[in-house]
Every structure is written in structure tokens, then in C-alpha cells.
């Protein structure tokens, strides 16, 4: 339990660091982003003077010195006030509320499946060295991992979507569907998610496979595995309960850095598929200098990474009894 507490403290510190970084970044940039914004969106600013205030608060200006602006900023964050988006003319909070669920859906399904597929294949590949799994799955997935997410998405869209017409190639649901909790909508959403999820699996399963395989190979040499065999336990039981249960722990600890880069992959996949998640929104907002959205999304993404890590930490505590008494 103390382990979890320590991790939680770290995540709080990291969140604070992310917020502060967010605060400092526009102020550290050469030139003034504020001027660029005024130039681009002059009209909207003139018609809504409050916006200018908010912008100054989040981007920094000569009006407010840093030591006043910072607590002001922290206060805004605490109350959930992220400002307004220019492009969409809506509060940023609402935008996040509309897009985050789709991203979580994609990430949840996609990375969960790639974890399951990757670790299972890794376990099998290590158990039967030189067998079919090891000789086929390992090189194939390792090769796929080298293809950047956007390239693989393009290839998938072109060949599987356009040419072969097997999958829908953009958006999260058909243009004529209503968003509702009905079976037909769910089905539609799932169909639209197939190709992006497939791409996500293709790019990330390889990492899980290799990590699991290598640790498995070491674990198989451990005494308790030999002892389990000697006791006459079935092959499958030794492979899963004795070897894999232990081998999965080191790859899980690498989850932190994995998830941070996974978010990058998510953004690229969303852009290619025009999937209405936070990744696509971030790109559009950044290109359009819609700074309120950009800053808020960076924070949201950082927070998601931290939350995902904390969930993984909890999972780790459940799986490894040695950590509990540490």
C-alpha cells in the first residue's frame, strides 16, 4: 500500500509539473503568440473582450507579472475553466467532453487488445522456441512495429478500405447516424472502429510480444518452473500459472513510457481516419492557433497518461504479492 501511496504522490507532482510547463511554454517562446492570435482572430476578439482577458491569462502578457498570473492560472484550472475555443465557439470543457470518450474508446479497445494479443503470442513464442509462433509471429509483428503509425494507417486505409472496401475508412460513425445508446449505433461505431483498432494492434502488439517473450525465456530457466514440471503439473498450467504469471511483471513496469508514446500513435491514427477524438482536435486546434484548446488538451492528455499509469500500478500490486509487504 505504501507503494501505491508513493506512486500517487509522484503523479500529483508530475501533474503539477505538467500544469506549470503548460503555463510557462507560451511565455518562453520567442515572439508573442498573442499577437499572432490577435492577427488571426481579430474580429472575434473585438466582439468578445472577455476572450482577450482569458487569452492574456493563459498566454501571458505585459499586463500581469508572472507571480500574479500563475496563481490566477492555477485557480482557473482548479475550477475547470479552460477558456473558449475560437474555431468552434464553445467552451473548451464541452469540446473535451465530446471528444475524449471517443479517444478513450479507441485507446481502451485498441491497446487492451494489443496487450492481450502481444503478451499471449510472446508467451507462446517463448514456450516453444523455434516453433511456428516464434518463427512467424515474432518477425512479422516486429517488422510491423517499425512502420510509423501514420504510414500504416495510410496503407490500411488505401488497401483495405479504399481498394478492397472491407472497412469504413473514416469517422467514428456513419454520417447519417444519430448518437444514442442503441444497438444499431453501437454496431455502427464498432464497424468504424475496426480499421483503426487493427492498425493500433499492428503497431503496438510487437512491443508487448518481444518484451514478454524475452522475459519468459529467462523465467522458463527459473528453478520454480523446473520444480513445477518435476511435480508432474501439466504443460499448460506451468506455462500460464508459473511462468507467464511471473514473466508478465517486468513488461508491466515498462508501461509508463509505453503509454506516453502510445498517445502519440493515437493522435496519428485519429488524424488519418478523421476519428473525432482528442488527437484530431489537438492537431486542428494547433494548426489553427486555437491556443485555449491546445493547452487544455495537453493537460488532459498528460492527466490521462497519469491515470492510466496509476491503474497499471494498482494492477501490479494485485499481481505481485511481494510489493504489498515492501
Amino acid at each position, binding site marked *: 500500500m505504501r507503494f501505491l501511496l508513493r506512486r500517487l504522490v509522484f503523479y500529483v507532482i508530475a501533474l503539477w509539473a505538467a500544469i506549470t510547463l503548460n503555463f510557462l511554454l507560451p511565455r518562453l517562446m520567442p515572439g508573442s503568440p498573442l499577437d499572432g492570435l490577435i492577427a488571426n482572430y481579430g474580429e472575434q476578439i473585438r466582439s468578445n473582450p472577455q476572450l482577450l482577458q482569458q487569452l492574456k491569462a493563459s498566454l501571458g502578457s505585459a499586463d500581469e507579472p508572472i507571480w500574479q498570473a500563475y496563481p490566477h492560472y492555477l485557480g482557473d484550472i482548479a475550477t475547470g475553466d479552460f477558456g473558449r475555443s475560437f474555431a468552434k465557439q464553445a467552451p473548451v470543457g464541452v469540446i473535451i467532453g465530446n471528444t475524449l470518450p471517443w479517444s478513450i474508446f479507441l485507446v481502451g479497445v485498441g491497446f487492451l487488445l494489443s496487450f492481450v494479443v502481444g503478451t499471449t503470442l510472446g508467451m507462446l513464442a517463448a514456450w516453444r522456441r523455434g516453433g511456428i509462433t516464434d518463427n512467424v509471429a515474432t518477425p512479422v509483428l516486429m517488422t510491423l512495429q517499425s512502420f510509423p503509425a501514420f504510414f500504416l494507417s495510410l496503407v490500411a486505409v488505401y488497401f483495405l478500405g479504399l481498394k478492397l472496401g472491407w472497412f469504413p475508412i473514416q469517422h467514428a460513425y456513419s454520417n447519417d447516424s444519430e448518437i444514442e445508446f442503441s444497438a444499431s449505433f453501437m454496431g455502427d461505431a464498432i464497424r468504424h472502429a475496426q480499421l483503426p483498432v487493427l492498425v493500433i494492434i499492428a503497431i503496438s502488439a510487437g512491443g508487448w510480444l518481444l518484451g514478454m517473450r524475452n522475459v519468459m525465456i529467462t523465467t522458463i530457466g527459473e528453478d*520454480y518452473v523446473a*520444480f513445477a514440471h*518435476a*511435480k*508432474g*503439473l501439466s504443460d499448460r498450467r506451468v506455462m500460464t500459472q508459473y511462468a507467464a504469471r*511471473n514473466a508478465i511483471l517486468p513488461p508491466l513496469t515498462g508501461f509508463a513510457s509505453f503509454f506516453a508514446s502510445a498517445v502519440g500513435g493515437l493522435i496519428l491514427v485519429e488524424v488519418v481516419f478523421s476519428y473525432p477524438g482528442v488527437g484530431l482536435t489537438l492537431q486542428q486546434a494547433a494548426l489553427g492557433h486555437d491556443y485555449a484548446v491546445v493547452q487544455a488538451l495537453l493537460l488532459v492528455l498528460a492527466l490521462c497518461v497519469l491515470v492510466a499509469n496509476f491503474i497499471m500500478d494498482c494492477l501490479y500490486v494485485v499481481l505481485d504479492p*511481494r510489493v504489498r*509487504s515492501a
Partner: protein
Amino acid sequence: MTVANAPVVTSVGAGTGDVLVEIEGLVVEYPVSGGSVRAVDDVSLAIRRGEIVGLAGESGCGKSTVAHSLLRILKPPGEITGGRVVFDGQDVLALAPKQLRQFRWRNVSIVFQSAMNSLNPVMKVGDQFVDMFKAHGHVRKSDALRRSAELMELVGIDPSRLRAYPHELSGGMRQRVVIAMALALNPELLVMDEPTTALDVVVQREILREIEVLQRELGFAVLFITHDLSLLVEFSDRIAIMYAGKVVELGAARELFDGPLHPYTVGLMQSFPPLSGERLRLTGIPGSPPDLRDPPPGCRFHPRCPRAERRCSTDEPQLTASAHGRLAACHFPGEVA
């Protein structure tokens, strides 16, 4: 009396029980770059019911490999490429996988060197007992746990520790748990592979005492593998000495200790200082064990042997009965250098 090619009666000097395990001409090979290495080269050994046989030798002489071959738990890429292992009439090397799984633990069980690592770190001790029982028959979990509790008491551990994880127990306790597991199905042979090496001397003694008590109670045979010859002398009925993959001497423990025949055995004896009695000068054995990829011709020990003559580098001596009623693989057994 040397009968060069007749099968050697490797149970010479044993007690009166009948033969339980017969290992004949066992060969175990490991592939290496450019060929293969025979970790065990034509080893024959018989163990009788209820007998305690010690198997001693330096690291790398093949003693653990012999033990693992009995249960067929050799780690790849090692392979049994020759010989027979007959356990109570069953040809162990010919067992199908399912029969092999039943054979293991019911007939033979093993305790490893670092028993601390023999327990799965993420499973409770009790669950590991239950796993074992379930693998050998349909038992209810409650029955399995009850039997496990009895076993724990047998080795002197509070049965409530069944709910603990291995890392919550001390090294000595884990060793006892492993022994309890090894005896769970009442095997006829218990193999102990350097079971006390990783423990301190006091705990070593305790464990050995307990094994002795259990052995008298339950009547199983023991194959005790170690490099510590002094342990074997008190503990075993017979001792086999291995060198470079071969058995070089075999006989009743006390006799072997009082009058070793093979020069290697002599050297081993002289390497251990006695705790009591007069101070002896310690002499090691000069040189080092041979590279098994290219073993010396003739007798494998001859480069280090004080008795060696020309014949030793050309003629490999077979394990033959000497006048003393014991077996030694030497052209000049029992002679002082």
C-alpha cells in the same frame, strides 16, 4: 577379478532390499559449437528400496544431470542419447508424456539446491500444494489442504503458513516446505540435489536430521547429490563418486571413507579438513577438471593423477570390482602413490 564387458553389478555393497532403480549406460549430451559434449558418459548405478545413496563430485561432473535424467527434467538443449533407466520395472525413458507426468512425484520426487527458488513467488504456498495434488488425481481443494497441513506439521512448520507467500517465509522454512511437497505423494525415491549448499551449517544439520527421521518413518530411498563428501559419510549407505561424466568409484559409505580406492576419491578426502582429531595437511588435487568437449584419452583423471602410468593415457579403465568388494574405475585401485 576384472570382467571387462560383463554388466557391472552396481548394487554391490548395498543393503538387502531389492533394486528399485536401475540406471544402465546413461548418456546425456549437450550440443555445442562444433559437436556435442557428453555431460554424462555411460553411467550405471542401481538404487535399492529404502537405501540412501550419495553421489559426489566436483561441479560439472554430471551428478545433477544424472538426477535430472531420472525425472526427465533436463533443461534443453540437453538430451538423453543413450542408456536405460528402469524404475520398479518401468522403462522411464519410454514413458509417454501423460504417463510421465503421473510417474513424476508419485514415484520419484526431487528437492533442488536453492529451494528458496523452487516456490512460485506469486502463488500462496497452500495453492502450490493443491496444484500438485490436483495434478495427480481428482481431489477436492479442502482435502488437499488438509493433507498439506499434515505435511507441514511433518516437517515442523505451523500449518497456518499455508496461506503465506513464499517471500514471507525464511530460507530454512522454505526448504522444509519444499521437502514436505516432495514427500506429499509418498514417493519411493527422493532425489536431493545439493539441498543444503545454500544454507548455513546449523540449518544444514537440522535438515539432514529431519530427512533421516522421515526416511526411517516412511522408508523411501534417497539419492543425495553433493560436492561435500563429509556430509555423505554420516548420512548414506553407499557412495558413488563421479568425475568428468563417469562414475569412478562405488561402494559402502564407511568402507569407502576408510579406504578409498580411486586416486580422485583419495584427493577429495584430503581436501576436507576434519573438525576433530589431529590436524592434517590439506592437499588439493592439482590441475582442473577436463574440458568435456575434448576429454583426455584413456582414463580421464590421468593428467592429475599421482599414480598415473603410461597405460592410463591409452586404456580407459572400466568400473570393476576390486578385491576389497568395491567398484573402482582405475588400473591401480587402492595403491598409494
